[in-house]
């Protein structure tokens, strides 16, 4: 035991030494210092004098998802502006998401924002919320169920319409054979996107399922597909991080396919400018969070409702090389 303890102590000493040495081994390019230098001021303060209401947002996000991080950021900034206390929670299990909504109802929040990725699991608890007089707005998924469940408005992208936009864009680019890369097997929204694209696309489109939690495996799977079928001339990934894996797979497979993707992140913005990506379809997650909080505030303050019972669409917005430059700053600060 004593030996192991000295080992730990020695490790600590080495760690301290390296930390010290790191100050000497600085990088003159990139890093935190470069970020600070171009730091954008995005924070604000309350613009209204309405009472401090509490709104809760409960999503079906898994842990550590960039997309939902941006949604949350939009909601938080709208909350600051509207003098709202904002609570966020999430679970990718339908049953647990419903329990989190119940917890928000128990807390007697003044407004509720939920996603309906698993609508059946959420139906009862949303009825409870509306029964308790809490206004509900649905975001992102569940545009079909939103009205029937008693929500004021749905804010999000219609996945089928987004998919169709991709199909049309591929046609415009004269593509013949495309691959749709799904990183979560069994996700209804993902299927809808690929189905929509397949419907609108004049060429042939195939699905490829990959394991989204294992990036090298995603790359190898796309590589394998491109090697099998050299006639594939475009690859569409359903999430920003997977676009980069597709670009590398294309390089290894020596394929000429164009890589396109759903969603944005800093790397996608850079790659669009560099021409390694064809286009990106953005559903503007920031807007989904921001609008949800803002519309709840408008409802409480002025009884305003947007959309007339129909979903308010935040996408699809097709982004190409020429739009990417101005978006880079915003993707860097994590709001696009």
């Amino acid at each position, binding site marked *: 035991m004593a030996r192991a303890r000295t080992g730990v102590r020695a490790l600590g000493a080495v760690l301290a030494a390296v930390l010290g040495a790191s100050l000497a081994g*600085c990088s003159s390019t990139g890093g935190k210092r470069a970020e600070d230098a171009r730091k954008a001021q995005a924070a604000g303060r309350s613009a209204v004098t309405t009472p401090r209401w509490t709104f809760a947002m409960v999503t079906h996000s898994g842990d550590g998802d960039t997309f939902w991080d941006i949604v949350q950021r939009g909601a938080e900034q709208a909350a600051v502006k509207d003098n709202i206390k904002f609570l966020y929670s999430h679970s990718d299990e339908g049953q647990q998401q419903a329990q989190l909504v119940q917890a928000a109802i128990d807390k007697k929040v003044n407004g509720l924002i939920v996603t309906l990725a698993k609508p059946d699991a959420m139906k009862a608890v949303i009825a409870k919320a509306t029964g308790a007089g809490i206004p509900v707005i649905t975001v992102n998924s569940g545009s079909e169920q939103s009205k029937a469940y008693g929500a004021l408005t749905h804010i999000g992208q219609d996945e089928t319409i987004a998919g169709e936009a991709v199909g049309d864009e591929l046609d415009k680019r004269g593509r013949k054979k495309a691959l749709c890369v799904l990183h979560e097997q069994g996700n209804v929204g993902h299927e809808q996107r690929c189905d929509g694209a397949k419907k609108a696309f004049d060429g042939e489109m195939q699905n490829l399922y990959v394991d989204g939690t294992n990036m090298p495996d995603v790359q190898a799977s796309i590589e394998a597909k491109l090697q099998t079928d050299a006639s594939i001339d475009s690859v569409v990934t359903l999430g920003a991080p997977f676009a980069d894996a597709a670009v590398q797979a294309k390089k290894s497979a020596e394929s000429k396919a164009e890589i396109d993707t759903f969603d944005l992140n800093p790397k996608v913005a850079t790659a669009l400018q560099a021409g390694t990506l064809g286009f990106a379809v953005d559903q503007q997650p920031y807007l989904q969070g921001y609008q949800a909080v803002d519309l709840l505030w408008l409802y409480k303050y002025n009884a305003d409702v947007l959309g007339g019972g129909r979903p308010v669409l935040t996408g699809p917005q097709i982004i190409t090389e020429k739009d990417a430059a101005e978006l880079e700053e915003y993707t860097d600060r994590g709001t696009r």
Partner: protein
Amino acid sequence: MSATAPPAAPDRTTDERLLRTSPLRKLLGRPELGSVVGAAAVFIFFSIVADSFLRASSLSTVLYAASTLGIMAVPVALLMIGGEFDLSAGVLVTTSALISSMFSYQMTANVWVGVLVSLLVTLAVGVFNGFMLTRTKLPSFIITLGTFLMLTGLNLGFTKLISGTVSTKSIADMEGFESAKKIFASEHTFGDVTLKVTILWWFALVALATWILLRTRFGNWIFAVGGGADAARAVGVPVNRTRIGLYMGVAFAAWVSGQHLLFSFDVVQSGEGVGNELTYIIAAVIGGCLITGGYGSAIGSAVGAFIFGMTSKGIVYAEWNPDWFKFFLGAMLLLATLLNAWVRKRAEASK
């Protein structure tokens, strides 16, 4: 000599270690034999059903897929031979990548500094696992499940706290990135075949682990500890140190994989890696490691990883209906493992 031979029946009149065995018998006694037959079967199967499978470029893709898994399967197999599990191995890879990336970025330090800090912290997690195990005497399943959950939370919490988002910032424009990329994520072209450097890391780790297992004292300790810890302690094997060493081995390989992840994509998603620990264990088991410990080989883990790589990519090459992907994968793995077990039983019966 064969350190991997199963324990002899006690009622033999002659010491079985002194019996002369033919080379064929020796071959049949190797733990990886079953998996080699399984690998050959999977290979022949996909060669027939998928036209593009046999192309050199396709095989290099399969090798790449196998290597990223195989690098981790080697120390996980050693750990299993030593009778323990590590459920934190999958997320530890992500942890290791996150630490290098965030340390370099936040300190605006040369990328190599972050890589070294990451090595130290990752090894410290290995020491923690081993130390907790030997100190508390709790099963490794519980200890490493705890580590798994804690690391998953730390990965997310720290990344969000430090970077402000759930993925790291790109470090591709920082000093030292290019040289580190050469070591951990480069590609080498031979003729029209492009091989990833992870394949070299994989082979090197397999060779090193095989040498340790069969030619060193530490290797004997591993088999002894996995076969029966109390008996091993009674004959003077430092059981605790062996176990801590094995966990550090897992940590080292996690560091290598983590750096590959970081330098091939230069941005790391903090939620990645969950679930991969099972894949490593599966590769080791297909490769002939017994879940109860004391039996197995490093080469077997490599063959297991290769079977997994062939199956998961072969399904793509064969262009089977993707709706059934997971089913095919499961069925192929089950068949390979059954064949493996059958061959081993035949081999042992013929002794």
